[in-house]
């Protein structure tokens, strides 16, 4: 099939991804009466935002005094000084307003006795720039993501956003002047390709948790948008920073929210010792995630793990009492009973660090515009292209994301990008000319999977990649291990062309979708190990046993990985919008 025969549709603006980030952006644009198309490979409410549990940060100060500036300090510190401080200031200042907006949109937040939104403590939160624990996370029990995603979908139905449900985006359309003009997508139900032309395209495709064997992510989190950007010639930023959440259910990966520790739960080793007191005397179990994950890994490595194989630790919450657990953590209780076969009301939950969140992604500024280095400028915007949410790297999370900051990130920058698109549309009123050659590469990728005959299977390649990433690029890293990892992943990437699909049918062919996802995973797996090998320091989630210290002199910079393997670096935006910069300090909890 040539690009000529493909059906074409035109919209003012295209959003790829219907998680919290995509839906918040779409709502902003639909309300401004732009003609918005939202493409999602699953029905919107099945996006992974639905799984977010613990809550969303904002210094509402409903439970105790709080201040956006303290939130900013915690976020900069949490990022291990790799976060961009203008974007962080913007986000923390906007947070309270955005939570109120969501509440008005219908989100059923839990409530305090005075009728205000309930807030709980989360890791890495402090009052007064590093003082006592704060309670900053706004929660709808332990189903906050579900509550937010459904409310945003509902508001989009009201605003008459146009949805393409179960369409898979393959690649971006780009013209010779470097403008992005939409995307080639595949209707999963019919198997037919479709070209969606748009004056702006916003990527909101989520993270790439499926890189790792044990992860807290959905099967659909394969980093498609990040890989699409990479193929369109955009370097991807900070991919070496992948967050391991301290408390996934051991061996299975389902997440047990940090909110459990926020409500007063704590970790113990096989001796029943509350070991976090040793690693983070002040914040204890509510230290930053990178700190807690490393502590658990060390406990297990030094033989203090629990269970017959001494391969996990226990998360104890029975002392909270059945009331609190049923009211504040009902989803966690279900999950523990279903997957760990324990009722946390009387038994601790076995947990272990689990791949969770993609700090890296598509480089953007605080308006959601995708930016790349060009001539003298470190950040030149690509006309017509935006990215928000977990696929983007603004970067508010730097080297380590604070819990509760991602739900915030997606709505803050979803809204900001929506506003910027509206401005862009005023100045770019007409569609730029489309020509068939723009869709050719995408069509070739589909064609590639139509080859028949004997070949490797997509499933086995994915499994090998996930095992390799876990083995070579986990919580602790070193030059030796990463060098092997790079070799291994390169050979896996090379083997993809020998893979074949047995199923060549058109209608709802999920095997074909998984093949296209595999290509995306492979490209991003390689980016991750290559950048991890290159970065010779320990910062946030990136922990090198051969370079145990943070090295601000050489490494306080973002990495940018190009599809051809070249890595360049750009400075951190240390200058906030209005307040003083937070200079790097040793990070203790």
């Amino acid at each position: 099939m040539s690009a000529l025969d493909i059906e074409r549709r035109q919209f003012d603006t295209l959003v790829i991804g219907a998680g919290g980030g995509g839906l918040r952006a779409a709502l902003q644009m639909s309300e401004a009466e732009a003609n918005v198309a939202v493409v999602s490979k699953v029905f919107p409410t099945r996006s992974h935002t639905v799984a977010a549990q613990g809550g969303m940060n904002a210094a509402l100060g409903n439970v105790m005094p709080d201040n956006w500036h303290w939130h900013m300090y915690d976020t900069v510190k949490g990022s291990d000084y790799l976060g961009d401080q203008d974007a962080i200031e913007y986000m923390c200042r906007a947070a309270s307003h955005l939570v109120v907006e969501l509440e008005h949109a219908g989100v059923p937040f839990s409530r305090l006795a005075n009728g205000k939104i309930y807030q709980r403590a989360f890791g890495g939160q402090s009052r007064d720039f590093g003082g006592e624990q704060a309670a900053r996370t706004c929660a709808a029990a332990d189903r906050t993501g579900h509550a937010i995603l459904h409310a945003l979908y509902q508001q989009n139905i009201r605003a008459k956003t146009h949805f393409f449900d179960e369409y898979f985006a393959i690649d971006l359309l780009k013209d010779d002047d470097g403008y992005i003009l939409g995307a080639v997508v595949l209707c999963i139900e019919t198997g037919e390709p479709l070209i969606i032309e748009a004056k702006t395209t916003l990527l909101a495709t989520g993270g790439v948790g499926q890189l790792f064997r044990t992860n807290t992510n959905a099967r659909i989190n394969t980093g498609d948008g990040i890989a699409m950007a990479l193929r369109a010639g955009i370097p991807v930023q900070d991919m070496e920073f992948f967050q391991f959440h301290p408390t996934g259910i051991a061996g299975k990966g389902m997440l047990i929210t940090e909110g459990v520790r926020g409500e007063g739960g704590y970790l113990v080793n096989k001796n029943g010792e509350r070991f976090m007191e040793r690693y983070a005397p002040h914040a204890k179990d509510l230290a930053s995630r990178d700190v807690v994950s490393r502590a658990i890994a060390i406990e297990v490595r030094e033989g203090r793990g629990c269970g017959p194989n001494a391969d996990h630790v226990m998360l104890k919450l029975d002392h909270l009492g059945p009331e609190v657990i049923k009211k504040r953590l009902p989803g966690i209780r279900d999950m523990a009973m279903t997957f760990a076969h324990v009722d946390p009301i009387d038994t601790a939950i076995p947990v272990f660090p689990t791949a969770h969140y993609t700090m890296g992604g598509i480089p953007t500024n605080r308006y959601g515009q995708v930016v790349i280095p060009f001539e003298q400028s470190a950040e030149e915007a690509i006309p017509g292209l935006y990215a928000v949410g977990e696929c983007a790297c603004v970067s508010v999370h730097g080297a380590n994301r604070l819990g509760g900051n991602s739900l915030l990130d997606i709505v803050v920058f979803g809204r900001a990008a929506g506003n910027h698109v509206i401005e862009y549309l005023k100045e770019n009123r007409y569609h730029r000319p489309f020509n068939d050659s723009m869709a050719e590469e995408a069509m070739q990728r589909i064609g590639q999977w139509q080859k028949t005959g004997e070949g490797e299977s997509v499933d086995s390649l994915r499994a090998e990649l996930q095992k390799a990433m876990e083995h070579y690029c986990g919580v602790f890293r070193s030059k030796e291990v990463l060098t092997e990892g790079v070799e291994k992943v390169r050979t896996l990437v090379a083997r993809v062309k020998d893979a074949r699909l047995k199923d060549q049918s058109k209608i709802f062919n999920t095997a074909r979708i998984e093949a296209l996802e595999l290509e995306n995973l492979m490209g991003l797996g390689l980016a991750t190990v290559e950048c991890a090998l290159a970065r010779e320091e320990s910062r946030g989630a990136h922990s090198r046993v051969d370079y145990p210290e943070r090295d601000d002199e050489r490494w306080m910079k973002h990495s940018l990985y190009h599809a051809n393997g070249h890595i360049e670096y750009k400075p951190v935006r240390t200058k906030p919008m209005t307040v003083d910069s937070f200079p790097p300090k040793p990070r203790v909890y």
Partner: protein
Amino acid sequence: MRFLIHRYNPETDKKPRMQEYTLADINAGDMLLDALFQIKEEDDSLSFRRSCGEGVCGSDAMNINGRNGLACITPLNSLKEPIEVRPLPGLPIVRDLVVDMRPFYHQYRSVKPWLTVHDPEPETEYLQTPEQRDQLDGLYECILCGACSTACPSFWWNPDKFRGPAALLQSWRFLADSRDQATAERLEELEGAYRLFRCHSIMNCMDVCPKGLNPTKAIGNIKKMMLKHLV
């Protein structure tokens, strides 16, 4: 472990069939979804929806040994062999275990499932007491999996006219919300012989709901509210 799985590919099959698979190497404590993944590894032509794998996204509702449920939270050891897996009943079949959910989503959208407030917005959150908020528990958690509506004979007969348990549960979710101000419009929209009143309290919905929600009760509450509204 033996499985009988509904297969139908409209491109090649004249009619649906049940295909048998045997998995020698599967842990009985695993979930049905794990077994489907294993089967798909051998036979990549088997199609089904799935995403989260933990019962929160609502993708993989299907008919399991005659009962609707989510494959990802149904342990194999709770099922009698051979395990029969079919698509959700009552909706058009797209392929294998995949049904066309559009009629279901249409009914959901028809109840205008969004918070509606006519007063001007305050600059802070709307206040709601914990007791008022408690009224939403058991309602807002719906994951739109469709297990309930497709287990309901009234919905099978009138999928275009009867809103069905899932949509009505959501209607009640907003009627029960102390912040919502569209009570009269919502109730009016449900008048007539079909939209609400096709519910005959058969209660299949609450029986199958994987989230333990109770649409029958919500429907009863709407009916009660309607009566009160009339007088």
